[in-house]
């Protein structure tokens, strides 16, 4: 039995320690907001935060997350930056199929926490690990810029 901290809550899981966090979240804990896309840290669909930093949960074994704080897309509503990003995602009508967007949002949130006023280059550098096969990249860029602006104004406007 392994205990992990997810979105501020302790969860017990009974799977081998080498099981990736992704499948633990999805299949064992029923938290399906975090998506499977590649299983090799190539597409970013499975992005979650460990102690605030983005990680690819598909290649992160359960044993590596014990004792750390994991935040998933389900925890973003309780996060000021997360909320701003989610709102910008709606206002820019980013999603097409939407499958990759949870991972895109998780990466965007950590970008904005590290670089509150990201340049185009910052956005490309941070986001290029997240694939969107529908091709929503221009709107993702616009949504990140909008969220940055909103956050700089203290969430007003």
């Amino acid at each position, binding site marked *: 039995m392994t205990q992990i901290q997810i979105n501020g809550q302790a969860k017990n899981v009974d*799977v081998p320690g080498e099981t990736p966090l992704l499948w633990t979240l999805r299949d*064992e804990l029923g938290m399906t907001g975090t998506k499977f896309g*590649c299983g090799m840290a190539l597409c970013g669909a499975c992005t979650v935060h460990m102690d605030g930093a983005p990680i690819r949960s598909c290649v992160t074994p359960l044993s590596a997350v014990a004792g750390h704080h994991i935040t998933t897309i389900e925890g973003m509503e309780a996060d000021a930056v997360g909320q701003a990003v989610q709102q910008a995602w709606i206002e820019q009508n980013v999603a*097409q*199929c939407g*499958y990759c967007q949870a991972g895109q949002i998780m990466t965007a949130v950590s970008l904005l926490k590290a670089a509150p006023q990201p340049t185009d280059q910052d956005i490309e550098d941070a986001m*290029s690990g997240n694939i969107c*096969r*529908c091709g*929503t990249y221009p709107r993702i860029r616009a949504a990140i810029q909008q969220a940055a602006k909103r956050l700089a104004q203290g969430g007003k406007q």
Partner: protein
Amino acid sequence: MMLTAQLSRRGFLQGGLGALTLAITAKGLITTVWAAESATQKYGADSMPGGTVDDPLVFVSIAADGTVTIVAHRAEMGTGVRTSLPMVVADEMEARWDRVKVIQAQADEVRYGNQNVDGSRSVRHFLMPMRRVGAAARQMLEAAAAARWSVPLAEVKAVQHEVLHQASGRRLAYGELAADAARQPVPTGDGLKLKDRSEFRYIGKDQVRLVDLEAIGKGQASYGMDMRLPGMVYAVVARPPVVGGKLRRFDSARALTVPGVLKVVEIPPMQGAPAFQPLGGVAVVARNTWAARQGRDALDIEWDDGPNGSYDSVAYHQALESAARKPGKAIRNQGDVAQVWAKAPEAGRLAAEYYVPHLAHASMEPPVATVQIKGGNAEVWTSIQNPVAARDAVAARLKLDPAKVKVNVLLLGGGFGRKSKPDFVDEAAIVAQAMPEGTPVKLVWTREDDIHHDYLHTVSVERLEAVLDTSGQVQSWLHRSAAPTIASLFSEGAKGQQMFESAMSAINMPYRIPHVRVETAEVEAHARIGWFRSVANIPHAFAAQCFIAELAERAGKDPKDFALDLIGPARRIDPGTLADTWNYSESPERYPYDTGRLRGVIEAACKGAEWGRTLPKGHGLGLAFCYSFMSYTATVVEVAVDEKGEVRIVAVDMAMDCGPQINPERIRAQMEGGAVMGLSLALTSEITFEKGRVKQSNFHDYEVLRHNASPRVIRTHLVNDDHTLPPGGVGEPPVPPVAPALCNAIFAATGKRIRNLPVRRVA
């Protein structure tokens, strides 16, 4: 009180009709082709299984609290159709969008009409039926109110979720009228009053966001991959690495020792043509996906590769080239191309060959299906473009009446044509059958499974030959296409493209050229050839559009001026006169090839890109255009190529004329996404075979465009929002012009012609 008694009620007729549907769907596109050539041809939606249904009692229900529930009968894979079609209903019925709830239909084409979401048909075929649904519901509400008040019908009017009686100022909310409205006769024919365009509230107005938008951003939207049921087990399959291969022997002992592994199940091999059959192999069932995957890795398997074991992409490319250099089967022939070529001086002749490799769809959600079998019934939860094909595959597999198989359609994490084939649902049914009764089985494809075992886009060599006279006019045009056909999926050994493939930008070229010959070469398929977003338009338009730019250069003319001259004046061409007997199964009268609309998008894209402007060194503009799925698109790409040959996309201008624009914001989204997908296939994507096996396995070697390679600027130009025109498709048409526009831009920037995709970098 509901307008409909039971949205999920299933007609008893369905079983009998289901068998008919199976016969049709098993043949898929092929049947469409045969039908297109018969004398009693039905067109458009009427030519599809299930046709259309426009009964408001099927699609709309109103609760006493006023909530209007609208059925989305077609699957959502990212085009926005789950929003757009219900929005059309809501507009016509004067429902307030914030009081509308959208529910997803199960597979049932007898009840809802055709549900096969491919071919860019959803709005094309269902705009008018959905308008009629909404208008009928509105009129039934008005009739109920008029009866309640005992006033003439002409004195009442439905406005935003209420019916008003202007003279008395009385009003009744939709919820108060629902029960009475359900008992009103359904207006039909002349009695049905559609809105005038000026009365639209949502259609064309960009007032409505995707119904799933908020849930998507919160990670709460439910995709096929997200299905969960109590007691569910997970399966992954080891499939033969070569199409048509079989198990020679396998040993599951070690797999069964992997913690969490529950069972190993043999999947029977494919028989005959692939169609929608599973490929065969061995499934490992476990308590979670990871354990199943570990169990699969522990299987000891020997395969018999079968006849496709020597398929090799390098050798096949050469085989396609030699096929393209020999006379093929003429499918369009006017004048005498051979004679004009023979008599032309060398300086007037131009020949070029273009190569587009196999492509994998690589939707972000790999194929996945959940099946539960209980008490002689089966229930399916999956992300599928063609739910009835899934139902029929499961029914056939389990030897059940199709009426005993329920298919629930969840959101698709992308589809692009892959998910119209239900092979993965059939696999899940096989595994579920091997488990204790009632065990829900979720069968998951890994990314490697998806790349290795896709229904691939074809691979092609297109050879073009033309003769220019001394004034730069094109006198003759030969287009010979060598590519394995999708027909090989349904008919073993089928060789040579069918009309439905040739009629995607090869046979139906409309240019003013006196001598024209279009040929197909006979080549064998060694992989599962499927349809990929915009299908044969990709290679055909790539070749023809690059070739036109090459001809312009030879003639010493501006590519845009040259193209417009080749197209000639605005006219409506009967596709039959171009030897196109398919026309996307649409009526040639309703949907002629309109060169005026083609000219219109070329002008719009060029205007957006400021065609003709002076560019920085190393930059170039390229133009390409395409008519596909009854819509017209043109694209101008601006590239910058550095001294190392690295290509950067500076900007893309894309113009589209799809006729009436129902949800312009979503049309623009499809155009932007089509630009990115078109650039992916142009720049980096390629599936190759060696010893019958796909060499690529995941996103490191099957590369698709990422943020850093995506253009910072994509400008979309929507033209000709004309509601007197029948609607065109939107999902697929943005893709074909992108790759040729890019290669023409690279030529403008560097003087180098790229004829083989993917470009990767300019050598």
